[in-house]
């Protein structure tokens, strides 16, 4: 935990420093290990979104959902998203992230961007990026949580190929969107 965080030192409004990345890594590693030991499964994120999408599709077009093995896979796991393990886990991620940000006085309403781009363009790019991320995650059977972290820790070959590809894709694209961030 950062020295500057905590409720006791809330006198000044300056946001607390981030945690040492190696310590934060050990923290995430231990959380993942706890997930393995307790539930026999790792952490995830993209599956929760697929679960909600399947639920909504089933709500508005049950016939279409019934014929589609992708939706059926998620619908067969839980009768509604709130009973789905991954969905509840992602709700927890939001709560945990908020608590950490709150105690470090980092909670703020802002659109993060570089100085050379408008808010509007940044939001359009955020949407485009979000579409690519969710599409890529479904294509690869997982995201940076389910594949890179969970599968990576179990030395899953496909997960490592995926992780290397994520870094390659990001480094290869970074130059073209540099004005969004710098």
């Amino acid at each position, binding site marked *: 935990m*950062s020295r500057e965080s905590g409720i006791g030192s809330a006198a000044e409004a300056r946001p607390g420093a*981030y*945690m040492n*990345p*190696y310590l*934060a*890594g*050990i923290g*995430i*590693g231990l959380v993942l*290990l706890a997930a*393995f*030991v*307790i*539930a*026999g499964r790792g*952490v995830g994120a993209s599956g929760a979104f697929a679960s909600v999408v399947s639920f909504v599709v089933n709500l508005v077009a049950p016939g279409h959902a019934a014929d589609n093995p992708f939706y059926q896979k998620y619908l067969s796991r839980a009768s509604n998203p709130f*009973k789905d*393990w991954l969905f*509840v*886990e992602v*709700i*927890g*991620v*939001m709560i*945990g*992230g*908020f*608590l*950490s940000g709150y105690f470090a006085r980092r909670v703020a309403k802002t659109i*993060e961007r570089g100085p050379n781009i408008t808010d509007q363009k940044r939001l359009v790019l955020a949407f*485009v*990026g*979000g579409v*690519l*991320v969710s*599409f*890529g*995650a*479904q294509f*690869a*059977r997982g*995201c940076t949580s389910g*594949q890179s*972290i969970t*599968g990576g*820790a*179990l*030395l899953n070959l496909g997960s490592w*190929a*995926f992780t*290397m*590809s*994520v870094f390659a*894709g*990001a480094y290869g*694209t*970074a130059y073209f969107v540099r004005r*969004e*961030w710098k």
Partner: protein
Amino acid sequence: MTAPLMSSGALSPDYSLLFALLIGIGFGFFLERAGFGSARKLVAQFYLTDLSVFKVMFTALVTAMVGVIFLNRIGFLDVGELPLIGTYLLPMVVGGLILGSGFVIGGY
């Protein structure tokens, strides 16, 4: 082997969702602590100005990996019960490239 606790019966699966919530809270807490609530800090990895993503990710992997090997060696954790995703190299590489480009475009 007593773990995973839920598949060995040491812990009732009724509490499954409670632990899902707690594990999620822990995961989200450390992600934000590391600075991953900030899109600019995340993408800084790809401009080589801040390598936190790399440091956090691989420290987490090594920590969990060592824990799994150790707990398996002492006969506590059955690795056969852990989730292994099949290897589908082409979709995983293509999906990874797409996700990676979306990562730096969207700042996720």
